[in-house]
């Protein structure tokens, strides 16, 4: 946060304060707009209103305790945050996760991607005046949250993905629930498209708005649907596969127009691709099999073993009192979150608490390009441009 007066100082223009409590900022984002009439001359984002020092708190927790904090970074993608953190710690430990657990992770993360895109679509549409899309999107998101509740007992802050695997076996009846969702969802995506894709108001508000060239997008470290809408097919699931994504068959949708409309089309296409991945993951998940890696002293033993075996009891006690100590070193892992490249950097000094945990937050880095998108455009386009980057302020400020 900073004094903007020193940054914006021209005399014949007007400085307008947008936010932090503006409904279209999706949280608490403040933007200082220097206006010449209705044209934006300069835009300066001011962030930090939600800064809670998550990275500092991580230094005072054991490796397993950090997982609950990761949920709260990007609250529309808690499972993705769990995944990237666990992958980083597993890399530090050199731990191999059983295939079944990897497929369950993929299933959950892809459902999460759909739910996150639904929130994006709904809020972006309501910002631009399309009320009914919002209600439809939240209706389907509810179905996904119900599936999460089945799996993890929680709808949002699931902490379902754990170091070495996942927390629980899939519950009875999960196949029917996911199957029901997969049958319903394609027609629902069609429904959103009939409301928006050919809608002249929607096209008027999004087409040719917020252009950024692919070179500039890469130079500004933009990733995710924003970069793919500029024609760069950079998707971590394909380029640097993790959690067995190389075994799945899916496309990376791209466009070349690089405007708000192209980003809308990319995200809608991504929802359809995610449905394909969910279907494949469901077929790959066997009814029986391990959900956690075998690593005594790191992965908590099963409840039955803990109650009957002396060694398991000792491990259980040690894991929950002292934690475990990965070898000294650093690991950086990136995954494809709904917003772009989500990275986690973990440095260990050989003690049971991490020396440093850092999250490469895609919202934070993509937001930096906002002035480039809006400068020289009308003030009404600012709302469309904020929406199109798909920021989550919890992740921006951490």
């Amino acid at each position, binding site marked *: *946060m*900073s*004094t903007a007066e020193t*940054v914006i100082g021209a005399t014949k223009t007007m400085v307008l304060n947008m936010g932090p409590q503006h409904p279209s900022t999706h949280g608490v984002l403040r933007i200082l707009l220097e206006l010449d009439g209705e044209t934006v001359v300069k835009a300066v984002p001011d*962030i*930090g209103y939600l*800064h809670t*020092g998550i*990275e*500092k*708190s991580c*230094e*005072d927790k054991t490796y397993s305790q950090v997982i609950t904090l990761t949920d709260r970074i990007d609250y529309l993608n808690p499972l993705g945050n769990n995944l990237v953190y666990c992958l980083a710690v597993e*890399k*530090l430990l*050199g731990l191999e996760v059983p295939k079944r657990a990897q497929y369950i992770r993929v299933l959950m993360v892809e459902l999460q991607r759909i739910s996150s895109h639904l929130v994006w679509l709904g809020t972006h549409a309501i910002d631009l005046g399309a009320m009914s899309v919002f209600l439809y999107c939240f209706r389907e998101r509810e179905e996904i949250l119900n599936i999460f509740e089945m799996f993890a007992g929680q709808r949002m802050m699931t902490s379902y993905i754990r170091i070495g695997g996942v927390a629980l076996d899939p519950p009875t009846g999960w196949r029917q629930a996911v199957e029901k969702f997969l049958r319903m969802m394609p027609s629902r995506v069609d429904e959103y498209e009939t409301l928006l894709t050919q809608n002249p108001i929607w096209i008027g508000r999004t087409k040719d708005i917020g252009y950024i060239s692919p070179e500039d997008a*890469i*130079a*500004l*470290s*933009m*990733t995710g649907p924003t970069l793919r809408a500029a024609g*760069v097919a*950079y998707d971590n699931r394909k*380029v*640097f596969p993790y959690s067995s994504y190389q075994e799945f068959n899916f496309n990376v949708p791209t466009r070349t127009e690089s405007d708000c409309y192209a980003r809308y089309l990319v995200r809608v296409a991504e929802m359809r691709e995610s449905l394909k991945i969910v279907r494949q993951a469901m077929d790959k998940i066997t009814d029986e099999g391990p959900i956690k890696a075998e690593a005594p002293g790191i992965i908590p033993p099963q409840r039955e073993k803990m109650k009957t075996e002396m060694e398991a009891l000792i491990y259980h006690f040690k894991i929950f009192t002292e934690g475990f100590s990965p070898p000294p*070193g*650093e*690991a*950086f892992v*990136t995954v494809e979150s709904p917003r772009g*490249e989500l*990275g986690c*950097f973990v*440095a260990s*000094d050989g003690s049971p608490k991490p*020396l*440093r945990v*850092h999250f*490469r937050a895609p919202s*934070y*880095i993509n*937001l*930096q390009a906002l002035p480039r998108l809006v400068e020289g455009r009308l003030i009404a386009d600012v709302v469309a441009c904020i929406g199109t980057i798909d920021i989550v302020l919890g992740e921006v*400020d*951490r």
Partner: protein
Amino acid sequence: MTESSNQKASVVAECLRSWNPQAISEIIEFRGETTIVVPRELLRPAAGRCRADAKLQFNLLTDATCVDRYPVGPRFELNYHLVSIPRRDKVRLQVRVSGDDPVVDSLVPVWPGANWLEREIFDLFGIRFSGHPDLRRILLPDDWEGYPLRRDYPVEGFRDVPSTGELFRKSSTL
């Protein structure tokens, strides 16, 4: 460590060495990740080389972060994570900085995306980036004292903040 990651590491190392023999002070391989430690004075030219060299093409600066090794010296380690989209490759550039004089060249001239990443490090670690166009605090208020992510900064903070219980008692006895 796999063989392919070994080969990849050698490509980056060779390119940088043939450009300037002093460019690499150490190469670390851990869990298949390559870290190239660069002397502080050569950071910006080495980074520029990584981006411009036709054999490297590290066009995306994906992340920059800092580790505070206090009380071990040199105290700060700056890690720049580079990705080459055309070559599907990753590398980490590392610079070590002492706590007495934490100044590094800014990489904004090489990758404009370094802007906010460096502001975040400045805000939370107090490392200054010379040549940065807009080095201000970004997450914390301007008048914040100290740099919270340093290891000698307590997790609870420095100032005594009254608990809500205390505040309640005070307000109810008035």
